[in-house]
């Protein structure tokens, strides 16, 4: 029981920090970040202990729903997600400590930061529907207030408004899910729900509701449109938390409902997450490739990663429905590892973007460039993050991607025809997503950090204070270690996998080296990160030494080749949109009906030609603009009822009376 007490104390510390920060002004606000960092560390340690010990810790408080009380439980699943979340909170707090006490601390952000962290942790340990939704909605409320912190900018107000409505829709869907699970009697505690799972039809409804609820918070297509608006609008360390960590709480919600509360799965439950996830992955990246705002690109890439995780969860559902626990273990391990990895490299990238914003004051990629010379450390950490998110071998992104591909490759063995034929399609879409991710982040890194500065702000940039570099450095180190020690992390997941799908990944012992990651069995597929990394290092060092001994060591700096045109203006460089032009030509026409129009002036006229690109976002038009117009239109028509005469109101009353009287006459 001590664990829950300790985490209770840590959550209490966060709440008190929030309360005190709400009262104080000025530099005292900076105290918030050390307190939240400490609280995050304690919570993380408690989670780690529970995860490794594998024993659940439960408590029941008298508050909450009358008669049911507030159930809390820290089991291995919550502990794993706790580690992910508290890691993110720790990084964001350390980054926060770097803020300049005088100018950057505002009473609109600091008090809400610990509240947001506490709400997320509370969601994990909630063990009944009321506590879950209470903290879930509190989390949305705190993040809404953080998004609208820069309230003078109408853009962030609109983003915050859309975000809170989507959060409300998500909560309504989860309310349906828990309503279905609890049944008319109202047995909201999770253990009563586990005691008698719902029959198939209700279970299907609950699964769809959970998918909508958690998908809207995570950013599944078509419930994604708020994410690229809301996440960038928040301050950088908060958007790192929202993108890197809050989406993971959404995934935790889906895993808790689909794998824990709903009882034994049925095979077609896997189809919606797989199909939606794959579409989200590809479309998310197509949006990212075409967008020119640094933080919005990162938000779109969050959508892609959430899509990939939902594909993995779908595959896990498919495997466990067909009684293949080792396949389910591989898919679930891919999902959970990707949750961990994504929270690391996405937080790193958002903190990096925050550093760039802090240094240059600009977020548009076409205004940056050449930052690698002016912000060397941030550039190095951002590079590690960019390579990690593109799932390239030595880093952690590839570990979960590799596991996922192994699961997809094993999927054709599933009996049902739908899954049978879905697996190659899913494999192709995931490979396309991986390639698009690489293209997207080469574009982002190339445009922002490499080349020559395209604006005065970019030229005048300087690196961020030490604390912020420390936060980014820590995360970059985690990405590298996560890549090398992938199998160790997979082993640590064993208790969670046993709880969810009944089997764990084969131990490293069965492979030649202790650190090799094995999907099904060594003969089938193996990936030994340390050996590969070691050989790459040895090979590059030997070539460096050999080449330096054999060759001239003289190097000379000269002007870059400019085809003989002496004008070295930075505008000649490839900008973000020109880099995306080939991808737009190939994929944009299909996905967004993208057309490029070039208007040439008549011959002899010296006016410049005009080049314009029209990109139509169908999803926004159908799922957001249309309902919005419908509601406003209907409210416009109904508005007439406010301006009737007294006589007409009496007519309304009279008609209702006559209708009710006729009902009474007919029915009795």
């Amino acid at each position, binding site marked *: 029981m001590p664990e829950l007490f300790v985490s209770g104390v840590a959550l209490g510390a966060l709440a008190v920090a929030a309360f005190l920060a709400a009262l104080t002004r000025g530099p005292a606000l900076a105290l918030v970040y050390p307190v939240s960092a400490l609280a995050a560390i304690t919570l993380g340690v408690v989670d780690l202990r529970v995860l490794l010990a594998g024993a659940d810790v439960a408590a029941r408080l008298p508050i909450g729903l009358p008669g049911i009380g507030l159930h809390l439980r820290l089991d291995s699943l919550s502990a794993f997600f706790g580690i992910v979340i508290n890691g993110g909170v720790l990084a964001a707090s350390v980054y926060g400590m770097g803020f300049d006490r005088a100018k950057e601390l505002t009473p609109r952000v600091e008090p809400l930061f610990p509240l947001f962290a506490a709400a997320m942790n509370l969601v994990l340990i909630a063990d009944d529907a009321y506590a879950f939704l209470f903290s879930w909605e509190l989390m949305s409320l705190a993040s809404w207030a953080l998004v609208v912190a820069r309230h003078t900018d109408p853009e962030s107000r609109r983003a915050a408004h859309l975000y809170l409505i989507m959060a409300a829709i998500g909560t309504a869907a989860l309310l349906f899910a828990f309503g279905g699970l609890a049944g008319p009697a109202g047995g909201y505690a999770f253990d009563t729900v586990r005691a008698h799972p719902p029959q198939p039809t209700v279970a299907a409804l609950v699964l769809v509701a959970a998918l909508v609820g958690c998908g809207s918070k995570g950013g599944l297509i078509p419930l994604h449109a708020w994410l690229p608006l809301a996440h960038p609008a928040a301050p950088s360390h908060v958007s790192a938390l929202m993108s890197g960590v809050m989406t993971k709480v959404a995934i935790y919600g889906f895993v808790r409902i689909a794998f824990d509360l709903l009882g034994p799965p049925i095979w077609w439950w896997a189809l919606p997450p797989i199909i939606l996830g794959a579409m989200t992955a590809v479309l998310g990246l197509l949006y990212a490739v075409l967008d020119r705002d640094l933080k919005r690109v990162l938000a779109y890439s969050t959508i892609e990663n959430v899509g990939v995780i939902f594909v993995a969860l779908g595959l896990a559902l498919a495997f466990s429905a067909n009684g293949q626990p080792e396949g389910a273990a591989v898919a679930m391990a891919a999902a959970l590892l990707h949750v961990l990895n994504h929270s690391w490299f996405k937080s790193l990238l958002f903190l990096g973007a925050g550093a760039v914003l802090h240094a240059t004051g600009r977020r548009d990629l076409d205004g940056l460039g*050449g930052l690698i010379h002016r912000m060397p450390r941030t*550039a190095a950490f951002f*590079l590690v993050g960019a*390579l990690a998110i593109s799932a390239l*071998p030595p880093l952690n992104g*590839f570990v979960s*991607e*590799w596991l996922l591909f*192994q699961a997809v*490759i094993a999927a*054709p063995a599933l009996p049902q025809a739908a899954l049978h*034929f879905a*697996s*190659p399609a899913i*494999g*192709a*879409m995931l*490979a396309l997503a991986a*390639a698009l991710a*690489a*293209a997207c982040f080469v*574009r982002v890194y190339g445009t922002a950090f*490499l*080349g020559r500065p395209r604006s005065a702000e970019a030229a005048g940039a300087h690196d961020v204070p030490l604390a912020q570099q420390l936060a980014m450095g820590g995360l970059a180190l985690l990405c590298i270690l996560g890549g090398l020690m992938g199998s160790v992390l997979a082993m640590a997941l064993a208790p969670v996998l046993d709880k969810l799908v009944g089997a764990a990944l084969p131990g490293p012992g069965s492979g*030649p080296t202790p650190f*090799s990651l094995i999907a099904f069995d*060594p*003969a*089938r*597929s*193996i*990936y*030994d990160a340390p*050996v*590969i990394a070691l*050989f*790459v290092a040895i*090979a*590059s060092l030997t*070539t*460096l030494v050999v*080449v330096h001994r*054999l*060759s*001239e060591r003289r*190097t*000379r*700096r*000269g002007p*870059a*080749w400019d*085809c003989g045109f002496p004008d070295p203006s930075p505008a000649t*460089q*490839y900008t973000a949109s*020109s*880099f*995306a032009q*080939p*991808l737009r030509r*190939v994929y944009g026409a299909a996905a967004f009906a993208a057309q490029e129009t070039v208007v040439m002036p008549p011959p002899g006229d010296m006016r410049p030609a005009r080049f314009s690109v029209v990109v139509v976002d169908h999803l926004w038009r159908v799922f957001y603009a249309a309902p919005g117009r419908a509601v406003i239109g209907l409210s416009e028509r109904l508005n007439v009822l406010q301006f009737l005469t007294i006589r007409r109101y009496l007519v309304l009353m009279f008609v209702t009376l006559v209708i009710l009287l006729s009902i009474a006459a007919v029915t009795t």
Partner: protein
Amino acid sequence: MTRDLVVQFLAQGAQMTLVLLIAPLAVGVVRRVKARLMRRQGPPLLQAYLDLAKLLRKESVIAEGASWLFRSAPYLIFALTWVAAALVPSFASGLMFNWAADVVALVALLGAARALLALAGMDVGTSFGGIGSSREMMIATLAEPAMMLIVLTLAIAAGTTRLAGVADFFIAEPFAVRVSMALSLIALVIVALAENARIPVDNPATHLELTMVHEAMVLEYSGRHLAVIEAAAALKLVLYFSLIVCLFVPFGIAGPDAGIPAFGLGVLAYLAKLLGLAVLLPIGETSVAKMRVFRYPLFVGSAFAAAALAVFLLFVSKGF
């Protein structure tokens, strides 16, 4: 036991050095045959080695705006490609390295090399680097799904994604022409052409700004850095040759514990097959002209279609 380990280590070392040494030779053969087909004398077979030696001795001129990434990228790219090439079983399968990674990791290693090259291309800050990187990444998005489906075909047929495993499976199988394998071979050939910047997709010999892709990224390199990049490109070509050979024509590959004579036979068979491919490639290149950039989706798309068809055929029955 230690003797066996030593032999293993030696065999793996031999494979890595063999692949490194014959890479420039393969490129030389390709250039020579191509020249011959165009009724030209053509450069001597060892010309590639001479070029590398020349470049090593020249001083390396680096652009002002270039950062440490530009200077360190060539070595990383070469190392990644070399390790990837070492993964593919050439004369013997099941060597020590094959236990370290499977074909998915191989594709990812090549992806890492490609990403680093694209970044290096953009580091200098001229439009050529931009052209090269953006088109390279676009080609990658077309090629990777096809590669994934080829891997899926092999995994369904052979039951494993380890290259050595696939090679052993096909060696054990009685010789039979299977339609699905033929289709995935076609797909792999097209992907290889696209990835190695050969004629239909990109002309390795050209310096015409608007058409080059690979050359545009390495335009700024000179001296020893260019040498390393050229060696990496050659290694990549040999990697794809040995990949095609190992997956589709695995005969003559020795077992992991076979004696020295079996290794010798294996090497001979591997060199012969490599020579065959090195002759076939220029024949293919000279018979077709370079495509416009935005016809690539159709071309590489056909590889994707072939691989998809192969997978669906395998669904019908393992025998296909």
